[in-house]
Structures are given as structure tokens and as C-alpha cells.
């Protein structure tokens, strides 16, 4: 087959395998990168080559792999640049001695154990073309690495960034990555050097390179950033200039004898870290790199990983030894250091587990080692398995050592019982301002405690997560929450923005509402993809699970909403609607009309729900009660809503044809026909007054 045809086919197969296994891993609570790494190994001789050698030979003939290799190398250059770009010195600020001692210990301990392991492995798995010092130093560096991007993703997903453990871990991981890459650059220089003169040349060249980057390139990059600020957007010329700098930096480090990847990484760390500039560059590079190029690297690595090389029990024991040393060195070293500097055993254990994540960064280092010939193919396989195992074990071990409920307990600590707390999840930026104004209207006598929440699904997530040091400027939420925050500033309402990556939006909104002690979850309405229902999709999830009142706003008229109608027949949800209407009624100039709909009596013995039994005791003077006898309550409400109201507040109950449902196709007549803004309220089941109502509310 023609080389290009083969390459295109290879890329297609790799992408399908990586996406499929990545999605599978996400589903079982593992980082996506685990699936992508596994896909690479599965496409290599260890599985596809073993199970279907004919297919493997057809798909990946040896002579065609050069194209895959070139693309994967370019992917690595871009990826290492992105990793450097994400490393922000602000992560280290204010972390104190805990981070300093822990980060250095978390490098030195595995480095020491890795080097010690080399004493045993060198005669068994290396050969005389590699000196012991190079082999031992490489093993030390390879054991020391932490997968900063995967770690940041795990911390963000588990909402750990705002805990002490998360803050120290991310700082340690940043230090670890920089140090491990500097160590590796040293090892590469040592391996490539041919005599003392060559070593000196490499050292001198490296010093000149660093000086040029810091003294000449960085100021130029600052000017580029200023240019970006003046234009307000990243121009193609500016982007090309950054790419050019990246290529030259990678070329320079390769030329002086350390690796091209170090140059890419170093340029990333040297870049000015103002968020807008960095974010735009990241966004332009990230998807191409993470979705397209990195799976090719995984595949190329997998093609070089022959698990069949470990074909004796003794070799499997060696592999276990490698894994044991890796875990003991990284986890044990980090945890002991963290404990010694004041963290509790549980926190120190969690830090150790997190720092043990190696992921993709380990594969990058191992590939360099294999290319240089410092490690043999069999040792490469053992180390790849170790990288995969340490990444897989992180999430379950973390859950065992530091369960989610403890994280939640630690991150609460902010509640002020007196304030009316509203959580506003925002999916569409345009819905933010109306939600903000509704939240403000619901607490007219004081400032509500407002949390604006944006959740992003993992497949749309950035390489790393939120910056723990800077809520408001959070990269994840800045775009989605921007209009809401702007409206809040204009209205003088303080808002706490929250943003993180979420696998289960409904579950995470519920958990956040619980964490923040929300009295109300206020959501906008967006038509679900798989449903015609207003109360379907994520809204359904939140209404079903949340232990707080939940309200969905269909903003058909802009604020202020002063003429308020509450259709009422009784029940927990209608009462919740009344409670909110009562709050809205406290606005200056607001009037609330309660439309009490009763069915016509069919006989003298039929009981009629009386509003006097159900309504809250005290409404303000601006409340008007209107009682109508109608068989069709919905029609009554729609008719009344057409007559001079700004907002209808209504319970999410069957009476009104507004029951939450996952895939409902029912025609929500009231929601469709109501000509004004609509606030649909579902009661907190824990606040329902009778067991029957509580059961009804929970069932809804």
C-alpha cells in the first residue's frame, strides 16, 4: 500500500482505538490517558501483533512507521510545550516549607531507590554499551517523574485543588517536573557525550541556551504578549512567532546535546503567564495535540512495547520489583516528607498516592531512554507497565486513603447560616445575567450568598484544571461565567465563581449545592438533546437528587419581575413556589397574586383543599388572593398569566403538567403557553412537612 494511504489508515485506527478505550476508562472512573496508553499497547505486538499478526503486518508494516514516528515526535514537542505553559510559578507561592521539603524529598527518594535498583538491574537487563552511572541516573530520573497534567486533571475532577493536600501536591508536582526534566537533560548530555570535552561543550551550550532564553527570548515574548493585549486577540502572525520560537528552542537544545523536548518544555515555562495570552495559545494547540497527535505517540510507543519479552517468571518478578520500587520511592518518600512537615497521616498518604501518578510523562522519558539505548527493550516494557499501573492505581487508592466525603467536609467550612445561599449553575453564558438578577430579586433585603458554577465535561476539558490561587479568573469558567460576573459587578452583587471538570453534571451540581449549604439551586432552561421536556436532562438529575429547593427560570421577560403570579393547588412544590414568591414580593413595588385553583365540588362530602390550611402564615400586604373553581387548573393558570404579570412562579408538580422526567416527550402545556417569564420550583424533599409529601417530592 502507498505510504500515505497506510499512514492515513494507521491514524484512523489509532484515533478510534484511543477514543474508545479513553471513553471506557472515563466511564469506570479512570483518567482518559490510561485508556489511550492501553490502546497504544493493544495495537502493538503485545496484543494485535500476537492475536492477528496478519492484520498487524498490514496495518503497521515496519517500513511505514517513520511517518507515525515523525508525527508522534511533533506531538511530543507540542505537548511538552503545553506542559511548560501550564506550569505557573504562582502555584508555588505561599506554599512554604511543606512544599519545598516535600517536593525535593519526593524527587530524591525515588531517585535514590531507582539508582539502588540499578545495582541489581544493570548486570541483568543492560549491556556494556551503557555505563553504570548513565544507567543509574536514568533509572533515578525515570522513577522521579510525576505526570503533572494527569495529576492536575485528577485534582480538578475531585475538587481537591482547594484543599491543603491539593495545593501542596500541585506545587510539588510542578517542582518535580522541572527538576526531573533538568535531571534528564543532564543524563542525556552524559550519554551523548564523547569524552570530557564534549560534556563541557554540552554544559556550556546549555548555560548559553538558558541565558538566551531568559535574557533575550523572554523579553521578546513579553512584547508579544503586550501586542496581544493591545489587539485583544491572538493574531496569526503572533501565533506563528510562538511556533517559530518553539521550533528554534527545540532545535537549540537538541543541537547542544540535550533533548529537543527539553527545549519545548523550557520555552513553555519561560512564556509570560498572563492568562489570556497563554489560554489562547493553549486552546489553539491543545486539541490538535491531545486528540490527534498524542494518541499517535501512544501507538508508536505501543508498537515498541513487546510484553512478550517478559516471558519468564524471573522477569515478571523483576517487573514487580520495578513497580514496587517506583511506588515505594515516590509515594513513600512524598508521604513521609509531607508527614514530617506537618500534614496528617491521611493527608500525607493522599499526597503520596497523587505524586505516584506517572502517566504520559513517564512514557516520554522512557521513549527517550530507549531511543538513546540507555534502557533495553525488556526494561522498557517493565517501565511502561509500571507507568500504566501507577496511573491506574491513583484514583482507587486516593478514594481509599482520602474519600470524597472527607474532601467535601474539608472544602465546606464557608457557610454562613444566616445568608440565603443560591447556587447558580451556568451552562450557556447568555443565560447568566437573567439568573443573576433572579437570584438578587430573591434576596431583596440583603445580599444573597451567590455561587456561580460552570461545569465542563472531561472531553472538552483543558490540559489542566483550575488555578487554585485564583477563583475569579478561572480559565475553565471565565468564558461561561463572564456575562454573569459582568452583570453581578454592574448590580453590585458579590459572586463566588466555581468551575471544574465534571463527568456527571447532575451529580456534581447536587454535591456542590450540598457543600455550599445552598438553600436554592437556580438553573436556566436549555432544551435537552434527547427530550422535549423543560425539566429533562441535567435539570431532571438535579431535581431528583438535590437536598435543596430547585428552581428553573424560563426568562421570557427581562428583570425586574414585579407583578408575580403563583398558581396554587396545594402540595410541597406549590408551597416551595409560594416561599420564593414571598421573597420576590419583598422587592419594592412588587405584588404577588396567589391564584388558588380548586376543582368544582362534585358533591357535598368531597373535601376541598383550603388555602388557609396550606399557605405560609405571613405574607406581606402586597399579596392578593384569587380563588377560581376550574376543572383544568393548567388552563386557569395560563389564562391568568396572560393578564398583566411579569413572572409566574409555579410548583413542579403533576397538577401543572410539570413533572421532572429524564426523557419526557410530554407536552408541557403551561411552560409552552405561558406568555411571561416562568419560575418552576421543585421543593427540597427534606423540607416537606409530612411523610407523604416527602415521599412525593422524592419520587418526583
Amino acid at each position: 500500500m502507498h505510504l500515505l494511504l497506510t499512514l492515513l489508515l494507521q491514524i484512523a485506527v489509532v484515533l478510534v482505538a484511543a477514543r474508545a478505550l479513553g471513553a471506557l476508562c472515563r466511564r469506570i472512573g479512570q483518567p482518559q490517558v490510561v485508556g489511550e496508553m492501553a490502546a497504544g499497547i493493544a495495537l502493538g505486538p503485545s496484543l494485535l501483533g500476537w492475536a492477528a499478526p496478519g492484520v498487524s503486518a498490514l496495518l503497521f508494516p515496519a517500513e511505514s512507521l517513520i511517518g507515525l514516528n515523525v508525527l508522534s515526535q511533533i506531538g511530543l514537542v507540542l505537548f511538552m510545550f503545553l506542559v511548560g505553559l501550564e506550569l505557573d510559578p504562582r502555584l508555588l507561592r505561599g506554599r512554604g516549607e511543606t512544599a519545598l521539603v516535600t517536593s525535593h524529598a519526593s524527587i530524591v527518594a525515588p531517585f535514590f531507590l531507582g539508582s539502588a535498583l540499578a545495582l541489581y538491574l544493570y548486570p541483568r537487563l543492560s549491556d556494556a554499551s551503557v555505563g553504570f552511572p548513565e544507567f543509574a541516573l536514568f533509572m533515578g530520573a525515570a522513577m522521579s517523574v510525576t505526570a503533572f497534567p494527569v495529576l492536575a486533571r485528577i485534582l480538578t475532577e475531585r475538587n481537591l485543588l482547594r484543599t491543603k493536600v491539593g495545593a501542596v501536591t500541585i506545587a510539588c508536582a510542578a517542582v518535580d517536573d522541572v527538576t526531573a526534566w533538568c535531571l534528564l537533560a543532564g543524563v542525556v548530555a552524559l550519554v551523548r557525550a564523547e569524552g570530557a570535552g564534549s560534556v563541557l561543550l554540552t554544559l556550556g551550550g546549555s548555560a548559553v541556551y538558558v541565558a538566551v532564553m531568559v535574557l533575550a527570548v523572554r523579553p521578546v515574548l513579553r512584547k508579544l504578549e503586550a501586542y496581544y493585549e493591545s489587539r485583544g486577540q491572538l493574531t496569526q502572525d503572533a501565533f506563528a512567532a510562538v511556533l517559530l520560537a518553539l521550533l528554534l528552542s527545540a532545535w537549540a537544545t537538541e543541537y547542544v546535546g540535550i533533548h529537543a523536548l527539553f527545549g519545548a518544555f523550557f520555552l513553555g515555562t519561560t512564556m509570560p503567564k498572563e492568562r489570556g495570552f497563554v489560554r489562547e495559545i493553549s486552546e489553539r494547540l491543545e486539541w490538535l495535540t491531545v486528540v490527534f497527535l498524542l494518541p499517535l505517540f501512544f501507538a508508536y510507543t505501543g508498537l515498541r512495547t513487546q510484553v512478550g519479552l517478559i516471558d519468564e517468571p524471573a522477569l515478571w518478578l523483576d517487573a514487580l520489583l520495578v513497580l514496587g520500587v517506583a511506588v515505594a520511592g515516590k509515594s513513600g518518600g512524598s508521604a513521609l516528607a509531607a508527614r514530617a512537615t506537618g500534614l496528617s497521616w491521611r493527608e500525607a498518604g493522599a499526597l503520596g498516592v497523587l505524586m505516584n501518578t506517572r502517566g504520559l510523562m513517564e512514557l516520554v522519558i522512557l521513549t527517550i531512554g530507549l531511543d538513546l539505548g540507555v534502557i533495553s527493550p525488556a526494561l522498557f516494557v517493565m517501565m511502561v507497565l509500571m507507568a500504566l499501573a501507577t496511573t491506574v492505581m491513583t484514583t482507587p487508592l486516593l478514594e481509599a486513603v482520602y474519600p470524597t466525603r472527607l474532601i467535601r467536609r474539608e472544602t465546606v467550612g464557608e457557610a454562613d447560616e444566616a445568608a440565603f445561599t443560591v447556587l447558580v449553575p451556568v451552562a450557556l453564558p447568555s443565560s447568566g445575567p437573567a439568573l443573576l438578577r433572579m437570584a438578587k430579586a430573591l434576596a431583596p433585603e440583603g445580599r444573597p450568598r451567590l455561587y456561580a458554577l460552570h461545569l465542563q465535561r472531561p472531553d472538552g476539558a483543558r490540559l489542566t484544571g483550575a488555578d487554585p490561587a485564583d477563583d475569579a479568573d478561572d480559565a475553565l469558567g471565565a468564558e461561561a461565567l463572564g456575562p454573569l460576573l459582568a452583570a453581578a459587578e454592574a448590580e453590585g452583587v458579590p459572586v463566588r465563581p466555581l468551575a471544574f471538570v465534571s463527568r456527571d453534571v447532575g451529580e456534581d451540581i447536587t454535591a456542590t449545592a450540598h457543600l455550599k449549604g445552598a438553600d436554592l439551586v437556580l438553573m436556566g432552561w436549555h432544551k435537552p438533546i434527547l427530550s422535549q421536556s423543560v425539566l429533562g436532562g441535567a435539570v431532571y438529575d438535579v431535581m431528583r437528587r438535590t437536598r435543596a429547593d430547585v428552581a428553573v427560570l424560563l426568562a421570557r421577560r427581562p428583570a425586574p419581575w414585579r407583578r408575580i403570579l403563583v398558581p396554587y393547588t396545594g402540595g410541597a412544590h406549590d408551597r416551595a413556589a409560594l416561599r420564593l414568591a414571598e421573597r420576590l414580593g419583598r422587592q419594592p413595588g412588587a405584588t404577588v397574586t396567589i391564584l388558588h385553583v380548586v376543582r368544582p365540588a362534585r358533591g357535598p362530602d368531597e373535601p376541598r383543599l383550603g388555602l388557609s390550611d396550606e399557605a405560609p402564615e405571613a405574607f406581606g400586604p402586597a399579596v392578593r388572593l384569587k380563588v377560581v373553581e376550574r376543572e383544568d387548573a393548567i388552563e386557569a393558570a395560563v389564562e391568568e398569566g396572560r393578564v398583566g404579570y411579569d413572572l409566574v412562579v409555579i410548583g413542579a408538580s403533576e397538577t401543572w403538567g410539570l413533572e421532572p422526567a429524564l426523557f419526557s416527550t410530554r407536552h408541557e402545556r403551561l411552560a409552552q403557553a405561558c406568555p411571561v417569564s416562568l419560575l418552576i420550583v421543585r421543593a427540597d424533599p427534606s423540607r416537606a412537612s409530612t411523610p407523604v409529601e416527602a415521599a412525593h417530592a422524592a419520587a418526583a
Partner: protein
Amino acid sequence: MRPALLYLVLVGLPLLGVLGILRAGSGLAAPPSFGGAWALAPASYPDGCTPPAELRVAQSGRRAEVALGAETEAAEVDGRRLRTRGAVAVRGGACRGWRVEAAGEGAPVPAALVGRLVPEGCACAPVPFRARRAGAPAPGTH
């Protein structure tokens, strides 16, 4: 414990340990390196018994994989000797495969291999050969 002392214990001591390890490991010897591609220069052989022209070795310590084309065969490094466990399969030609028995010349990275190719599945006689590295020996070419 005071931070400086803590740092010394948790960071300084392991670093000293690494220096000790490097010193201790300087006396260790690894097996000779056969890894890489070798250009075979066989002695005379009869028609129909043409041996392969190139030999590739992927080495992991005392174990190796030897290829005479697309197929590979496990091999062992014993001292300065390299010997395949069975015959390395080849496509085309009269023989089904060749066993490789060789010894390295030069230490610790042999510059030449001297040995013989023992055919299997044909009536050919073993072919003595001398092989040189194809291309410059990269450090640690496994």
C-alpha cells in the same frame, strides 16, 4: 524538627546515598553489547544456500532477539557468545531458517561478530561468517 535539619535528613542523606550507589556500581559489569544491525560477510557457500545479508539484534541484558528479516528468534548472551535458541525463520530460499552461533570481537562493545549460520530445513552445510556493524555503533544500541 527544624526545617533545615528536616531538609538535610530527607533530601541530603538520600543524595549522599546516590553518590554511594554510583561509587558502588562502578565495579559492576554488564554483558557485552551485541545490539544493533550487523552486515554479514559469509564465507563461500554453494548455490541455493544463500544466507541472509543482515543480522539485527535487540538485546536486554543476557537475553536477545535476533532477526534475519521479518521474523525473530530468542537468543542468549553467554559471556562473549551469542546463540539463538532455535532457527530464525526466513522467507524464500531453500532453507526454512538459520540458527546463529557467534562470538564478539572487541570489548566491551564488540566491533565484529565471528561465527556460523546453521541452516534448518535444507541440506545446506553451516556457513561461517564474519559480521561488522552496519553503521556507527550508537551508545547502548539494544
